[in-house]
């Protein structure tokens, strides 16, 4: 391992939160290093059309949007490293952030590590991943053109995925464990009105069926206690997200689920000099635009803190 490089600010994560923090910090001449990670671009890399980010009246694809964010951060001199942070030590200052090939010390750190899709936790689900089981309809939907498919979940992501899949699927079952959806009204209405979508209520997935590739899914109706097999060739899991904060556990305050808990109305974490933004600290809104907003807050909070410490 080479010697540590010192930075005033290291930003961990590269979704809209991380890149917005980088844009602000770079313009404030903090010369931030963005440890972008191998999942660079964050969850937006897995979305098709972003229709609700202001300034794009025709919509824009998630990956295109993240390329623009990255370019804008680079324009002002942010460094971007496509490696995962493997170790983040927030116990003393300067803080330490390590990746495989590099090691940084930092006066301030912004945590923007986002969240990842949650899985059901079935053995058959793991075994058939990339063989018909996926957490990303955008990624894999078109591969099953002309086949029946299913989505598990009842929130906005599930509705979005189901609607997207109707472009390719002969039919899309939406398997939901309750008898009502959590999704926003507009997404519910679109999904319920779509002829290709059929809802399977009060149902849980018991097993994904298939030897080499998915050939079906067995669901259990929790109300009637009936079981049925849906003859699908692809199963998309959309049951929510888990914040990517395992590296920080025990170092800053996290809630029961693992979300970073900032001081109310700020981006300050329980460790002085450490700031948080985006989905890693937001169990409520979880939008690209709110992530960008909190990314901006984190950069401003970090800059002011560094100035107070005489480090900016």
């Amino acid at each position, binding site marked *: 391992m080479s010697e540590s490089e010192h930075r005033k600010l290291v930003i961990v994560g590269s979704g809209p939160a991380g890149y917005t923090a980088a844009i602000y910090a770079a313009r404030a001449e903090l010369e931030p290093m963005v440890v972008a990670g191998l999942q660079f671009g964050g969850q937006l890399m897995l979305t098709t059309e972003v229709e609700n980010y202001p300034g794009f009246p025709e919509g824009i694809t998630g990956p295109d949007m993240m390329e623009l964010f990255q370019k804008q951060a680079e324009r002002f001199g942010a460094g971007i490293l496509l490696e995962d942070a493997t170790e983040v030590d927030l116990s003393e200052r300067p803080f330490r952030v390590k990746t495989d090939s590099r090691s940084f010390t930092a006066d301030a750190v912004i945590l923007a590590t986002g969240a990842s899709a949650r899985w059901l936790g079935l053995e058959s689900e793991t075994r058939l991943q*990339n063989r018909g089981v996926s957490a990303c309809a955008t990624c894999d939907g078109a591969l099953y053109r002309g086949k029946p498919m299913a989505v598990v979940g009842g929130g906005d992501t599930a509705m979005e995925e189901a609607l997207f899949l109707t472009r390719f699927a002969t039919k899309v079952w939406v398997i939901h464990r309750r008898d009502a959806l959590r999704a926003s009204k507009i997404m519910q209405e679109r999904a319920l009105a779509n002829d290709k979508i059929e809802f399977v209520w009060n149902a849980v997935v018991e097993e994904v069926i298939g030897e080499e590739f998915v050939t079906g899914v067995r669901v259990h109706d929790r109300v009637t206690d009936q079981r049925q097999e849906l003859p699908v060739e692809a199963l998309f899991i959309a049951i929510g997200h888990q914040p990517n904060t395992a590296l920080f556990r025990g170092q800053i305050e996290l809630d029961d689920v693992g979300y970073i808990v900032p001081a109310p109305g700020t981006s300050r974490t329980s460790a002085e000099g450490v700031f948080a933004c985006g989905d890693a600290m937001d169990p409520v809104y979880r939008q690209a635009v709110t992530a960008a907003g909190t990314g901006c807050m984190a950069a401003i909070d970090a800059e002011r803190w560094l100035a107070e410490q005489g480090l900016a």
Partner: protein
Amino acid sequence: MSRIQVFLTSWCPYCRRAVELLRSKGQEFEAIDVEAEPERRDEMTRRAGRSSVPQIFIGSTHVGGYDDLAALEAAGELDALLEV
């Protein structure tokens, strides 16, 4: 340097990540769009035993998808495979 083949589609996000990661390492590769050339999709599924994209081959080694490529990189083993 090993010959690299990436079976991909124009819209797939993990394909984009794979391409970006290989480019960041200064690697040249053959990109095969399995939507534009559906007959090569069968070749991919046969060689990879998987139906998802991307599927990445480095030399004679089937790496897998982007998660597999990223896991190799995270383990510090990708450079050796790329012979850089």
